[in-house]
Structure formats: structure tokens, C-alpha cells
């Protein structure tokens, strides 16, 4: 009787460990949560200061095409139109994704379905290696090989959207490929045999069943690729030309949000308008990355419902 009572009321060693483990992970989780909130707060307050303290209108910031934060413009306000950067950022991101997706899906199909042995042994490590190469290396190669090539082929300076797109294409290709392969690999073998047993050819099986079943995952892969492209600063900065001008063609110097941020951040003082507008650019990046994230979640939820 006594013993039973004791056992039930006294915390066992196991439950103590359980409690201890829980507190540690709770602590870590809240630390991460606090960090996120702090970053959000920081970027928000700084980014919004352009509009609250410097009284720049949101409209002229988002739609203006002239970027000249250090000089007073015609309307008595410095001109800080971010539209060229927004356009360029979106353009290189979309173009890179558009170019990379067919390649990535092709390679992913090859690695997972067509030649899983050879593909797995050779291509997979290569792709993983490509993911790990620092972006400055890509930028450097772009600057020393791609820019002169573009100049040679098309004239002009060789800097611009086209060069930026090509560098980003190479950078997002491995990301999209490896995520797309994961989602192809997650398609149950049942579907393969069901399709083949119904008299589908291997191509019909891949195209009508496997790719389709993996579609939510592939879309997610593309969005992750786009998020990477949109947020990439260094490599793009090295090949885009860094002039805040509307892109007039494939190869005219221009700037993305990120490249302008990295270019400008060292030359401004905290609390002044030129500095604040950079934070506003960062805020746009943050909003976009939130957008990409929610897109991924949305697709993930739709995909789960399908299974």
C-alpha cells in the first residue's frame, strides 16, 4: 500500500528528464521566436521611418523611377523611386526560375526515375556540391566569364538582366533540382506499378502519374528557388551593373533590391533618409519572403489534402 502511493506521487527520474528536455526545447524555441520578432520589429520600424519621419509617400516610393536619395528633387523631396529595382528583382527572379525549372525537373527525373543508380551516384553529389558553393564564387565566375562573353556576343557593357538571370539560373538550378528530386522520390512505388499494369508506357507513367503526383512538391521547389534568387545579393551585384535605372533591354546596367542594399549600406549614416530608404528596400524583401513562405505553405496544404 505504502509503496504504491510513493510510486505514484514521487516524480520518477524519467519524468524529471522529460520535464528537463521539454524546458530546454521550449527555451530554444522561444529564443528563435524572439529573434524573429526582433528582426521583424527592427526592419519594420526602420523601413517605415522613410514614410513616417521623412514623409515620403508610399506611392512615390513604390512607383517612382528615379533614385536619388541624397539630393532634393523637383518637388522639394529627395527622389526615392524603387520601381526600377523592384522590376529588375522580379524580372531576374522570374526569368531564372522559368529557365531553371525545365532543366531542374529534367535532371530530377533522370536522377530519380530514369537512371537512379548512375544518377544517384554521380549527379546527386554534384548537385549537392553546387548548392554548397558560396554565392560570391558564382558572382566572380559571372563577372570574369559571363560579362565579357555577353559583351562580346551582344555588345554594350555586358552587365544587365540577362547576365544576372544566367548567374541566378546556375544558382537556383541545384536548389530546385534537389527539392524536386525529393518530391519525385516521395511518389509511392504503388503508383508506378499501377500505371504500368494498366498498359501505360514508361513515359506515360512518368508524365501522367509521377510528375503529376509530385507537382505540389515541384511547385514548392520552384518557389524555394525563386526565394533564393530574389534574396541573392552578392552574385547579382557583381553582374547587374548597379545603376538604379529601369532596365531598357536585356543588357543595360540596372540594380536589384538586394544589390542596391549591399552597394548602399556602407555609404549612409544611420537615421538619415538615405539610410532609411535602404531599410525600406529591406522591408520589401521581407514582405516578399513572407509571401514566398505563405505560398509554400498554401501549396503544401493543398498537396497534403490530395494524398
Amino acid at each position, binding site marked *: 500500500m505504502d509503496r504504491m502511493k510513493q510510486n505514484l506521487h514521487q516524480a520518477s527520474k524519467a519524468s524529471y528528464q522529460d520535464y528537463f528536455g521539454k524546458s530546454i526545447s521550449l527555451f530554444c524555441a522561444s529564443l528563435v521566436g524572439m529573434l524573429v520578432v526582433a528582426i521583424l520589429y527592427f526592419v519594420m520600424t526602420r523601413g517605415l521611418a522613410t514614410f513616417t519621419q521623412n514623409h515620403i509617400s508610399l506611392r512615390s516610393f513604390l512607383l517612382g523611377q528615379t533614385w536619388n536619395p541624397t539630393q532634393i528633387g523637383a518637388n522639394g523631396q529627395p527622389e526615392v523611386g524603387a520601381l526600377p529595382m523592384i522590376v529588375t528583382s522580379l524580372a531576374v527572379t522570374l526569368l531564372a526560375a522559368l529557365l531553371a525549372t525545365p532543366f531542374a525537373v529534367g535532371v530530377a527525373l533522370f536522377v530519380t526515375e530514369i537512371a537512379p543508380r548512375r544518377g544517384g551516384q554521380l549527379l546527386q553529389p554534384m548537385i549537392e556540391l553546387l548548392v554548397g558553393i558560396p554565392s560570391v564564387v558564382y558572382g566572380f565566375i559571372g563577372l570574369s566569364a559571363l560579362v565579357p562573353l555577353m559583351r562580346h556576343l551582344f555588345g554594350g557593357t555586358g552587365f544587365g538582366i540577362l547576365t544576372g538571370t544566367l548567374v541566378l539560373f546556375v544558382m537556383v538550378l541545384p536548389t530546385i533540382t534537389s527539392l524536386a528530386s525529393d518530391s519525385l522520390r516521395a511518389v*509511392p512505388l*504503388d*503508383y508506378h*506499378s*499501377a*500505371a*504500368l*499494369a*494498366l*498498359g*501505360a*508506357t514508361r513515359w*506515360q507513367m512518368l508524365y*501522367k*502519374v509521377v510528375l*503529376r*503526383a509530385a507537382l505540389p512538391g515541384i511547385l514548392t521547389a520552384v518557389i524555394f528557388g525563386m526565394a533564393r534568387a530574389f534574396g541573392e545579393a552578392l552574385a547579382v551585384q557583381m553582374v547587374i551593373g548597379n545603376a538604379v535605372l529601369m532596365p531598357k533591354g536585356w543588357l543595360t546596367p540596372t540594380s536589384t533590391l538586394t544589390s542596391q542594399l549591399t552597394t548602399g549600406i556602407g555609404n549612409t549614416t544611420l537615421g538619415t533618409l538615405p539610410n532609411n530608404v535602404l531599410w525600406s528596400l529591406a522591408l520589401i524583401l521581407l514582405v516578399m519572403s513572407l509571401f514566398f513562405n505563405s505560398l509554400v505553405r498554401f501549396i503544401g496544404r493543398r498537396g497534403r*489534402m*490530395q*494524398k
Partner: protein
Amino acid sequence: MTAIMTSTDVHLAYGAKEALHGFDLSFKQHEISALIGPSGCGKSTYLRCLNRMNDLLPDVTITGTFKLGAQDIYAAKVDVVTLRQRVGMVFQQPNPFPFSVYENVAFGLNVVGHYAKADLDQRVETSLKQAAVWDEVKDHLTENARTFSGGQQQRICLARVLAAQPEVILLDEPTSALDPISSAKIEQTLLTLKANYSIIIVTHNLQQAARISDQTAFFLNGQLVENTPTQQIFIKPQQKTTSDYLNGKFG
């Protein structure tokens, strides 16, 4: 009645390990043939030879002859895709694609060729009716097939095979994952399908074999022990081992 599928001197090895040890077996047209035997005796292995699904496994050696009608299905020039359209298969686990019911059933047709929408609708409906699942899915044709119950999914899979109008339907323990009511529905379906199709079914359920099949083949350790009309085998089997198995002495 003529034989629809015949196989002679069947040997099959997975790598160096032989799983089927040489026997002859044939199936009559418009009959239900049951394959029974203890686990691991080679029923699924044999069944997969009949639509060449074993081709998909690495390192499988098959010898002997298999014929559909008069044609050798392992002959060099045979198109496996056409063969599988003529010899359909329903698996043990229901495996509908994660698409709508309609798309699942239409899949087999779309693989073969292009059909007008009206024809497609008609064939999908007929197949689902034949598979005795129409009433349960007719208002949900656009819903994901994987959201239905296991029994319904299995009948959708059967409809998917029927839509392609094969001559022979292979079923590998199609009801082992199902409740008795769903199983009974599938059994009923198979009995009505017999008029137009030849059916070969692997089952662990001896009552099921007794209820629906015309011919029963008993396998043991990669060998065919006997192939006897169902009415006889359960009353008066030819072999002692069969009788022992049917009486639950092993297996």
C-alpha cells in the same frame, strides 16, 4: 471451353534463388480461376509472370512458355504495353492515383488512345457500374479517389482496369485488406464479370475460392500441387497435401 492463358514448364529465379520450380498451368476462358497456397509459395510471383510485371524487378530469370491465346507473351517482338492492356491487374493494396475518381478510371483509356468526352464519360460510368461502385461515387466523380474507403478504392481500381477492357483480369488478394461487406461486393462483381472476362485470382480465403471460382490451383513451395475444378477440390482433392492444407493441418 478453350484455354485463354497457358503456361508450360515455368521456372523463375530471383537472382540465384529459384522461386518457381517447373510446372504447367492453364486457365479457361470466361472462368474464375483461384490460386491458393500458403504464404511464400509463389502465387504472386506466378501471377506477375502473366502480365510480365516481373520484368520490372531486377535480376529475375524466367523460363518456360507463357501464352495468351496462341501468342507467346515473352516472344521478342511482343509489346509489353499492349500485353498489359489485354491482361489487366488489380493489386493487393488498393492503389488509386491521387487524382479524381473520373481521372482514375479514364486513365486506362487515355493511355490507349484519344476518346471523345462523351465516349469517355460513357465508359467511365459503365466501368464503375460493372465494378459495383457507381452508386457510391456517382456524385463524387471529381473527388480525390484516395479519400474513399479501402473497399471503395479497390472497386475504383477494378473499374480502372475494366475501363481498358482487358481480356484477362489478374487479382492478387484483392480483398485481403477489406471488410467482409466490401469483399462480398467484389466477389459479386467478379461473378457477373465472368461472362465477359477471364479472371485469375490469388486468395488466402479458402471460402472465397470455394464461393466464386470454377477452377482452383494449389501451390506449395514453388510447385503446383494440383489444378482441379473447385467443386471437386474441396470435397475430394487429388493429393494428400492438398487435403492437409484445406483441413488446416499446415499453412
